[in-house]
Structures are given as C-alpha cells and as structure tokens.
C-alpha cells in the first residue's frame, strides 16, 4: 500500500503551492484597488444619488457610480460634469472632486459624477506599469486617489468580442467594448460599459440637462489636446468660452466633433438629447506612448525628459518644457474652462444661467496647488 511519492509529483505540488502563494500575494495588491475613494461633499450638496436611480438595472453592479447633485433655490440652467470617464486621466476626475467638495449653487442645478466609469478605477492596464494610486498634499494631510485604467475591469465585463460595434453603429477593436467614451448612446441590455453609458444618457434626459461636460486628458503627442471638442449644437458656446479663456491667457484649441466618429460623448449626447455637449482635454505625459519611467511623480508633477525631447523635435501639440505640465495646471485649465462655459451659457441664454458660489479659482489652484481646495483626509 505504501507507495513512494514520485519526485515530479513532489515538484508539482511545490510549484502548485508557490503558484498559490504568488496568487495570494499579488491578489491582495490587485484587490486593494477595489477600496473606494472617499469624498467630502461641500455643505452646498442637495442630494447624493446613484446612477442606478436613473437606470435601475445598474443597481448593485460595479458600474453604479455616485451622482452629486447641487440644486439652487432659483430656477436656471442644468449642468452635468463628468470626471473619471477614463480613470487614467486624473485631471478630469480631480476637477470633479474639487468642485463637489467646494461649490454651492444658488441658481440652476449641477450634477457631478466624479467617477463615471467606476469599474475602471478598480484595476490597471497591463503593459503600462502605472502606480495604483497617487496623492495630493492638503493643509490637513495627504490624500490618496486611485489611478485606474482607461477601460472597464475585465472581471466585471468578460469576454471582449473580437469586434465591437457600438450602439451608434461604429465598428471598433474588441477591447473598446470596455471604453465608456466609445459606448454612447449605450444599450439597455448591452455590456456593463454600454449600460453605464445608457444610464448617463438617461440622467441627461430625465434631469433635462442643458449643458453636459466630459472632462478628459490626452497624451501631449495627440492632436486633440488642450482642446475644447464641441458638438455642432454647442459651437457658439465653445467659441464664446474659448475667447474668454484666451482673455485669461489660456490657449485652447477648438475642435469640431467629427460626425463620422460615433460613440463618443460629445457626439451622441448632442445627437440623442437636447443637451449641448462638450469634451475638454488637457495634456498628461503619463498618458503617452513616449513616457519615460511611470511614477506617481509623473502623474502629479508631469515632468518627463522624453517629452522635452519630443517637444524639441516638434512632435507635440502643446508647449512642453522641463518644468512639465503638473496636475495643478491641468486641473486649473479644466476649472477655467468650466467657468468660461458656464458664463458663456448665461450669455447665450439668460434663462439657463447658473450661479455658483465658492468656485475654486483656476489661477489660485495653478499657483498654490490643488490641496488648498481639497478637504483634508479624516
């Protein structure tokens, strides 16, 4: 009965144990990204709801993200601000957080979704070597934020098809099925990401949003950067805002949303709802293909010698010096643009005026840092 265990069986057993240990060690790190970020809404907050309140099918799904609502006493315009469509574009996300932790609204309504693709915040893109989180200094201590992936977590939406044809009929490579900003107008019975897109469309329709903003970042070598991408229904507003920004010495490119590129927020929001649709881009070196060593510092300070070199070679679409483009500058840009768009909306249509109090001033953020306007960690 007593049989000697064969050597290769023993090795197999050891290797299996080793595999298990490695799974556990790395699994703990992967799972650490599922811990949610804490935000501290300003006292001006009227209600905190969820996207599933607009599209119940999302309830309890990893895509059910928080919606922060600020309602003014007076009737006015309705504004939607989306951050975190791509969780690896932190300036958009942080701008939304900064707004929800500071503003008060006396006229009109503002809806803020800081983490539009919540699932994307729970994992990192393979091959990018990015850190899992980054921190910003506030007067009361350091606050950490997740740095996620451009795409929905594959464990939340599996498998990718070979070819993704989105609800607007555009054919894209399979992985784009997890890209929120290729999934509009979304699909009630589609993949999770399409359902999130559908939920956002529902919010825009039900809350009768007048102006919807999608805050992004792009690589400095990408032609649409430091740009205001507008649907044709918001061309005039974009022009007004870009001139206003120019007066504040902020150069911004105007880019018309191409009608042939379907599935993007600035296209489908404008096509399928009465809302004006605008997407804003800033330049983020940690996003590009030329980036050097990825690090928390690259995300926050935005300094990269590779991009300085690329800039000298004339390959970039933004000025880029050895000082880099720090996140405070990128967030300040977004803040200034949001402000300019809101005042442009008032100019165009006084009925849709929105009065915002405690709006974090772009210039101060740029000069003194984001932390000044962030709630200290508890």
């Amino acid at each position, binding site marked *: 009965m007593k049989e000697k265990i064969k050597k290769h069986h023993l090795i197999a057993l050891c290797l299996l144990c080793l595999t298990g240990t*490695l799974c556990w060690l*790395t699994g703990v*790190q992967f799972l650490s990204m599922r811990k949610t970020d804490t935000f501290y809404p300003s006292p001006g907050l009227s209600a905190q709801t969820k996207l599933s309140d607009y599209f119940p099918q999302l309830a309890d799904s990893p895509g059910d993200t928080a919606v922060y609502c600020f309602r003014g006493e007076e009737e006015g315009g309705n504004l939607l601000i989306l951050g975190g469509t791509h969780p690896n574009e932190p300036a958009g996300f942080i701008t939304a957080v900064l707004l929800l932790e500071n503003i008060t609204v006396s006229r009109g309504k503002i809806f803020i979704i800081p983490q539009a693709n919540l699932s994307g915040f729970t994992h990192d893109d393979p*091959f990018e070597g990015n850190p899992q989180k980054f921190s910003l200094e506030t007067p009361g201590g350091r606050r950490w934020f997740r740095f996620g992936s451009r795409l929905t977590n594959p464990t939340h939406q599996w498998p990718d*098809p*070979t070819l993704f044809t989105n609800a607007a009929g555009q054919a894209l490579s399979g992985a784009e099925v997890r890209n929120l900003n290729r999934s509009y107008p979304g699909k009630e019975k589609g993949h999770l990401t399409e359902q999130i897109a559908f939920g956002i469309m529902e919010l825009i329709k039900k809350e009768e949003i007048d102006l919807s903003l999608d805050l992004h970042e792009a690589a400095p070598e990408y032609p649409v950067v430091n740009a205001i991408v507008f649907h044709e229904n918001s061309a005039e507003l974009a022009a007004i805002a870009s001139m206003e920004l120019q007066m504040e010495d902020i150069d911004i490119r105007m880019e018309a949303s191409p009608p042939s590129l379907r599935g993007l927020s600035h296209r489908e929001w404008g096509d399928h709802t009465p809302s004006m649709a605008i997407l804003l881009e800033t330049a983020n070196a940690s996003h590009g293909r030329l980036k050097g060593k*990825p690090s928390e510092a690259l995300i926050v300070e935005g300094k990269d010698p590779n991009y300085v*070199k690329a800039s000298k070679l004339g*390959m970039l679409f933004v000025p880029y010096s050895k000082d880099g483009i720090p996140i405070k500058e990128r967030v300040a840009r977004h803040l200034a643009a949001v402000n300019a768009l809101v005042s442009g909306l008032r100019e165009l249509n006084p009925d849709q005026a929105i009065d915002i109090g405690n709006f974090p001033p772009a210039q101060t953020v740029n000069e003194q840092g984001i932390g000044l306007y962030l709630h200290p960690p508890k």
Partner: protein
Amino acid sequence: MPEYAIFLSMVVIFAILAMGLKLPIGVSLVFSALAGALLGGEGLALRHLVEGSFGYFDTILIIVTAMIFMKVLQASGILDTITAILLKTFYKRKVTLLLTVMAIVMFPGMITGSSTAAVLSTGALIAPVLIKLGLSKVKTAALIAMGGILGMIAPPVNILVMIMGGGVDMPYIGLTIPLLIIVIPLAIIISLWLGYKDIQILDYEQMKSILPESYSQEYGFRLSLPVLVVILLMIGQGFTSSFMPDIGIPAIFLVGSLVGIFCARPFNFFKVTQDAMKESMPILCILAGVGMFIQIMTLTGGRGWIVMSFLSLPPVLLYLGISISMPLFGAVSAYGSASILGVPFILALINKNAIITSAALSAIAGLGDLMPPTALAGIFAAQIVGEKNYFKVLRYCLVPALFELAMGIGVLLLAPVIEKII
C-alpha cells in the same frame, strides 16, 4: 542605472538564460523581467509581473481553444477527409490550387483579425494537402504563416488598423479598398513564389495512392459540421449583439470542438485537450513572459527610450525606422507594435491620408507575428506541419516578408497618388 542600460541588461540576461543555459524561452523571459525589476530598483515587483502577463490572457485563451479545435479535427478524422476532398478537386490544377489554398488560409484571419486563428484552423486543414502534393514541410508552413498574416491584414476586420485608428480618432471606415490594394497582389505573389516550383501535378493514379482515408462515406455531411459551425459563428459575430453579447473566439472554437465529438470518428476528448495543452504550453509561457518583459520594460523606462529613439530619427530615415522597428517590436506581438509604434508613426506622417497610412503600417506591423521569440504565425505553422525548429520556417518567410514590407513602404510613399485613384 539609466533606462537603456536596464533594458540592455534584460536582453543580455534573456540571451544567457535562453541560449547559454538552454532554459525554455518563456521561463527565460520571466527571469529576465524579474532581473530588470530588481536592477531598476523596483524590488520583486510581483504585481507588475503578473499584471503584464495578463496583457496576453485573451490571446492565451484563443490559442488554447484553437489548439483544442485543431486536435479535435485531427483525432476525429475530419482533417484527413477534408484533405482527401481537396486533393481530389485540385490535384491537376497548380495555380488554382495555390490561390484557393491561400484564400482558405486567409479566411479566418480576415474575419477575426488574428493570424493565430487562421493558422490553427484552416491552416491545419490545408497543410497535409500541400505536403502530399510535393511541397516541403517548411515551405508549407511558410505559406500558411504568410497566409495567416495576410488574413489578419485583409478586410473586413483588421484589428491592427483599429488599434492605430483608436489612437488618432480615425473611424474604421473606407479601409476595404486600401487594404485590398495591399493584400491581393501579395497573396498572389507569395503563394506562387512559395509553391509554384515545388507543387507537383499528379495523374489520377498517383493522386489515388496518396489519398488519406476519408470518412465521408461513413459520416457524410455531419463531418463538415464542426468546421461549418466555427465559420458560421465567426461570421455571425456582431449579428447577435442586439439581443446577447458576442461569445468571442475562444468559445467559438470550443463549441466547434464539442460539435466534433459527435460528428465523426470517436475519440477521447480529455486526451485531446491534454495534447493541446502540451503543444501550446511553450507559446503560452512565452506570451506570459513577454507580457512581464514589456511591463517591466515600461516600468523602468525602457519602452519610452525605444519609442523615442525611433521617433527621433531624422526624416530621411523615418521610413527605414518604420521598416525596422515595427516588425522588430512585433516580437511582443503585432498588436503591441501597432499600438506602441503605429500610433506615433501615423502622427509623424500626419500630412498623408491616415486611412492609407494606417493600412500600410498594418501590413508592416503584421510582420511582427514572424518575429521571435513570440513569432505566433511562424511557431504555429511549424507546429501544424510537425517541424520542431520554427526558425527553418522563418527562413522561407523572409522573402515573402520582404515583399510585404516593400508593399507597405511603397503604399506609404505613394499614398498621395493612391488617394487620388480611390
């Protein structure tokens, strides 16, 4: 340690382990990635290593399931039957045979955008036919590998262009004609180049004598079901998306395999999956290793260094840079090459028509599937003809690959003219 030094050390360590100590390539890659992480001051960086390997998880699923499907076709006798049918049809028509064979190999690649899917499905079907008609094993494998790559580039689905287009906001529209301009001449030239001289024209008796056993009498139409099911499901992808999500290529191959159980000569399914595992294990481990290698390369700044080095070439050398770097970078897969280098190159050529540029770049990036250590198309083509050393196959792919490279560069240079014509 500067980033290029870390990268070069990783390459040297890989070479020592793989060539000096004769470790499996996949394992060597894993260890060189680990060494890179240590040298870069990142510690063991286990999270990064495992995360990197996940970059190829979907590819690994496709490979394993495609391999199972191929083994099912073999074990059930379907492969022999199809060989017999093809032989009977084509034994005395050389050019028609070669062109048909090319089209058959390309087909799964055309609808899935993956050279692996093509080589392991229809490539496996036609390999025995070519060998029986006198083409050497390695040349057959080269033909299949090139067919897989051309299928990957050919319309309607070219994932490489989609990846590049995604990086520059170019919709996947209007690519059919530019891609056909590239692929059709190549398909004709390459199939004739590799096969015309060696393929024998047989008389009926000769053909009869080499005919493998056919099961078509016994099982009839049922025999074709597994292949038909796979092809139909591949074509049908996207049609179902209105009421249910697509099932994806791995599930398609598995469905085909399961259908195979009931359609022909009985066989032991578990043994088949074990065989498939065994044959695909080296490449699975290589892919995991390559994923780790790239992640650590990015983490230590090596990737940025490489991309910058090629992009900062003077304009005269830009085309040379494209010709060298895109296939070379394909060593980490053609998709990776399209994403990491294809996008910046499109931007560097921004004054040309992006549709034609991306079509041409995809032809060049596609060659990456011939680049060791991954060399997906080369390795699997060698495997289906039973050739142990895939470098022998790659040797015969060299001239066809140069044709393809020349075509790609030619189209890039002539983009303004082609734009006027189409």
